[in-house]
């Protein structure tokens, strides 16, 4: 089965990388070019290798092909597939990466709906180095990455 193979691959990589002490990897999911550029640079500045996709569906497709990331920065409002839907699907696929919702939404109910989709953290845009660092603390607490 596709996901089992991807999962085995991932476990092997984590085991191997524990010895290599590799860089943390991240995926930026956002439909806005300006935001993607800024978030990618923020990550790069903290030594985090990262990739960008433009919507939830591209994020799902990437994971279906076996790619795994330590951290996913997930925007809420995106065309084709939004952040809530994408987060639900990633969790259903068994993806245990740290997923941080990043959005301009501040209405409590909307943020709650996003959290309930399976987020580990939520930060209001615009993202800053400080907010990103607080997200990264969640990764080390999850214990899924050796830093």
């Amino acid at each position: 089965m596709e996901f089992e193979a991807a999962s085995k691959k991932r476990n092997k990589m984590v085991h191997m990388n524990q010895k290599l002490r590799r860089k943390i990897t991240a995926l930026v999911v956002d439909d806005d070019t300006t935001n993607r550029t800024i978030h990618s640079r923020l990550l790069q500045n903290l030594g985090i290798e990262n990739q960008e996709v433009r919507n939830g569906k591209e994020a799902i497709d990437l994971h279906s092909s076996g790619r795994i990331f330590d951290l996913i920065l997930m925007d809420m409002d995106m065309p084709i597939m939004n952040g809530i839907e994408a987060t639900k699907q990633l969790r259903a696929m068994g993806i245990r990466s740290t997923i941080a919702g990043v959005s301009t939404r501040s209405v409590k109910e909307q943020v709650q709906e996003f959290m309930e989709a399976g987020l580990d953290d939520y930060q209001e845009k615009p993202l800053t180095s400080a907010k990103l660092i607080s997200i990264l603390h969640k990764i080390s607490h999850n214990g899924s990455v050796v830093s």
Partner: protein
Amino acid sequence: MDGLVQFQRQLVDYTASLFHEGFLDEQFNQLQQLQDESNPDFVVEVVSLFFEDSERLLNELAKSLDQQSVDFKRIDAHVHQLKGSSSSIGAQRVQKVCIAFRNYCDEQNTEGCLKCLQQVKHEYSLVKTKLETLFKLEQQVLAAGGSIPLPI
């Protein structure tokens, strides 16, 4: 040496005025902090993306508000995008108009929306001019052999 000091002074003063007048906010400082030797043009690059995106969105907004039957959902989506990207580069005044704009969308108030469109176009044009001036002043400093001071 004198010329360089003058240019640097101009740059610092101009930047300060943009913050003081509310054209830019703290988020712009964040962008400047992300610029270094390996990403020397980061701020200009991001701001250029912002200009491209905004111009596209403003055109879409004008078109949408010109329709017989106005699609407020679509307009709201565009304004939401503009609000997001303006806030991520620190274009505070543009962002503020977007907030008012969205309220008119919620009320399905065409006239209010048209008014906001004019306002947001105006604020966008102002911040664009200001940022272009800022970049010119930076070029002046660099050409005179200086370096751009990091934000305080």
